[in-house]
């Protein structure tokens, strides 16, 4: 049998140890793949939290979607800090009752609120954007100036009215994100899609979104595996050039695979009776618990509106 084997395979590598050659660079490829891994991880975490035995998990997705739409309107109607804080507290209690991991849940919300709420709104608190009672001066000129359509006052700083506006806007963003994340972490993606039918979104569009989501996760997995396969054969640092070449090759591969998978799915649909119109399975009737929770959430919303 040994005659089969090329002679170089019979040579044993020198045993013993290795020479220290310094740290290998982390390629941009690894960083990019890390983000794809995070996307898969998020999907897993959501799936895991939707299957817990919490308060909102047991409620029909249609009730939750209507609750979300109703409260998004309430969040945008309330313009005072007290009401906005009350809404935040209400969502916090719902998150606890739904057994969500609070730190993980609020980490992303706070980051997004800081970037898309606070940072974006902050310049509007300056007296350059809107006049008001100066509470926090930050820069002083010798005299006031006119610049295009703006009036630059002698002292630039944050105004009381401006800071109030920033606080309200930040709280609104925070509440809207908390509400969306609350639904996403207590309802599985296919259920959300089905529930969107209450807004008369066409079934075809829902099917396409559902398939896209499934494909994204599927190809993220393939991509992760391809990277591991590359890593297992990587003996030296990967240069940027060769990483780019590898990516180009793999994009072609994924493209081909997507096309092939698309054709296969279509054939499977045809063989199972698809003839044009799409029919998504219908929901069961709402139960007593769904009605009770729905009524409670509706009354809570009305109460917050009234306050």
């Amino acid at each position: 049998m040994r005659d089969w084997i090329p002679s170089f395979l019979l040579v044993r590598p020198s045993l013993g140890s290795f020479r220290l050659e310094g740290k290998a660079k982390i390629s941009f490829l690894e960083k990019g793949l890390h983000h794809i891994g995070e996307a898969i991880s998020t999907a897993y975490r959501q799936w895991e939290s939707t299957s817990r035995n919490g308060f909102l998990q047991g409620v029909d997705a249609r009730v939750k979607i209507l609750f979300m739409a109703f409260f998004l309107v309430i969040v945008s109607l309330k313009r005072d800090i007290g009401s906005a804080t009350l809404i935040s507290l209400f969502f916090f209690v719902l998150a606890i009752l739904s057994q969500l991991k609070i730190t993980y849940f609020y980490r992303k919300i706070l980051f997004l609120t800081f970037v898309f709420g606070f940072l974006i709104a902050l310049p509007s608190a300056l007296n350059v954007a809107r006049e008001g009672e100066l509470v926090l001066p930050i820069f002083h000129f010798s005299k006031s100036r006119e610049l295009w359509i703006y009036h630059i006052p002698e002292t630039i700083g944050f105004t009381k009215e401006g800071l109030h506006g920033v606080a309200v806007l930040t709280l609104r963003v925070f509440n809207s994100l908390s509400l969306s994340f609350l639904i996403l972490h207590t309802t599985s993606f296919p259920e959300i899609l089905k529930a969107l039918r209450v807004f008369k979104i066409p079934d075809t569009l829902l099917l396409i979104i559902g398939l896209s989501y499934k494909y994204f996760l599927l190809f993220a997995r393939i991509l992760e595996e391809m990277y591991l396969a590359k890593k297992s054969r990587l003996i030296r640092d990967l240069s940027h050039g060769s990483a780019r070449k590898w990516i180009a090759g793999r994009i072609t591969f994924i493209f081909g695979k997507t096309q092939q998978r698309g054709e296969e799915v279509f054939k499977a649909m045809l063989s199972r009776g698809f003839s044009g119109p799409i029919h998504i399975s219908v929901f069961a009737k709402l139960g007593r618990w769904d009605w009770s929770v729905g009524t409670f959430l509706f009354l809570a919303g009305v109460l917050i509106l009234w306050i």
Partner: protein
Amino acid sequence: MDLRGEEVEKMIVLDSASYKYQDIISAISNINLEVREGERFAIIGANGSGKTTLLQIMNGLIPLSSGRIFFRGHEVSTKSLKEKGFMRFFRERVGYVFQDPDVQLFCPTVLDELLYGPLQLEISKEEALDRAFEIMKMLGIENLKDRPSYMLSGGEKKKVAIGSVLTTNPEVLLLDEPTNGLDPKTQCFLVELMLALNEAGKTLVIATHDLSLVDELQATVGVLSEEHRMEKTGSAIDILKDEELLLRVNLIHEHIHRHGDMAHRHIHSHYLFHRHEK
């Protein structure tokens, strides 16, 4: 010590190794394992028991959630693999053949695929070419050298994937379901190839649920349970005759079928046990 009483070096050692996929789903749990130099080691278990994860951990591709892994006495970790010298030392000695060759083959042609490893090792182009052609001859794929991987059949892709790893002359070959989905002739060829490589001194670690492969290779066997634990380790003979164990880990099952008017119930594995009860 091996059967002849000679000192054999521990090649791969896993010490209380656990891994959770995405920190949520347990894939392997508290595994202790030793693979010795020149050994044929088969990891068997039902689908989802963690065989692939275990191989990927042995190849340092995914970091352990807890526990440790050693290769020739050196700890393999995210930190140690960042050291260029160790990464080279480890990667040129441990080759991994993925279950799906599509994810592994990324070069334009078969020849490029076989040259990739040796050229990375900075072996001269002449020697790299010699290696590639010798491997192609061994695998009977010389006629495919200029083909891109997407123009190959499943069996051909598998041969190229194995060849692409062999050209770097690794000491250890990790093979994930090597015969899965292949026709009987290619399966038979691969079994003979694995035996020949092992005879040539290569250590083989195979993940499979194919009990006939385990029997043919007469490997040392580690059985993974559906709870992702190492249920038992032993010789192929001992493991394959332990029906209770194989039933428990879902590698064989009870099965009812008819012969004319007679109905039979027996243990069924699509391999060894097809013994009718009276």
